[in-house]
């Protein structure tokens, strides 16, 4: 009974964050809902393997990451390779003009155009507020890779925002 209560509490606690992460990654609400359920079932099946010394958030997102990446690989709708670096923004003023206007929708729209790996690292860092080490654990990549991926993701987002303004 205690196990049931704990798991239901966890589902409630992480419902919006997990859904947001999956939605940012796969972009399709129906797929995100399906993966949301699959993630919790996987958590229930493997809860005895969870090391309580580790961050539960990182473990949860890691389970969701594996399922989402498997889904994206099966779909083959978008590349999961690391894209080449884009040139840095040439006009800083353009970014400042962007930032001065109301544009949460614009940022979200630009973010959704980024490759999956970039969307993922941005949402994990800025929305889920995970540390770099936790992100590395979720995406199963070395710290240096996560760091450079985050920088490239930010630069790509900035480029996209500038072209939209």
């Amino acid at each position: 009974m205690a196990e049931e209560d704990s798991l239901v509490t966890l589902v409630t606690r992480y419902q919006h964050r997990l859904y947001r992460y999956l939605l940012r990654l796969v972009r399709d609400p129906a797929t995100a809902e399906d993966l949301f359920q699959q993630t919790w079932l996987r958590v229930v099946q493997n809860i005895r393997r969870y090391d309580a010394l580790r961050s539960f958030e990182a473990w949860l997102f890691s389970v969701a990451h594996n399922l989402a990446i498997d889904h994206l690989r099966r779909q083959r709708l978008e590349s999961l390779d690391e894209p080449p670096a884009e040139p840095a923004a040439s006009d800083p003023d353009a970014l400042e003009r962007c930032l001065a206007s109301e544009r949460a929708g614009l940022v979200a729209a630009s973010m959704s155009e980024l490759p999956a790996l970039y969307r993922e690292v941005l949402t994990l860092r800025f929305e889920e507020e995970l540390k770099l080490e936790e992100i590395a654990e979720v995406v199963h990549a070395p710290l240096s890779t996560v760091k450079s991926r985050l920088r490239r993701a930010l630069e790509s987002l900035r480029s996209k925002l500038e072209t939209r303004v």
Partner: protein
Amino acid sequence: MSEHQTVGELLALAAAGVLTAGEQRRVEDHARACEACARQLEAWRALSGELRRLPTPAAPAELVARTRARVFEELAAAAERRWDDAVLVFLSLFAWTVGVAVWAIVRLVNNGLLALLDARFTEPVIWLTASSVLAWLTAGVVAVLVGHRRRMTWRNL
């Protein structure tokens, strides 16, 4: 690479708050002396702020309710599987114990009670074989039943 260029590559990460204390200090020291980098750092910080304040899409209430129900089902199925495993282990141990113990018992009573039966079961080897076959048959049937139940449980998930 000049200090300006090196720091320039760290500005986005500085705004993201993922640099080491030393790197962060290096960026801030340079930005205090370099107006261009200071403006860039401010722009990256603004962008980071925008990302942190993006509206959170709420998980549909119906999805959460459905997930909770599935979690309960899965927990119940897991408990049943653990019980089945325990039964299976017990029966296997029981079959082995019977197989070994019967031999000793037959040896003990061979010249007493069994002699009265005047049957071929008084032969220890035949008795041991018959009881072992019975024990293993029982365990086998239970294993098949447990396996069948498990398959049905998985199919319903």
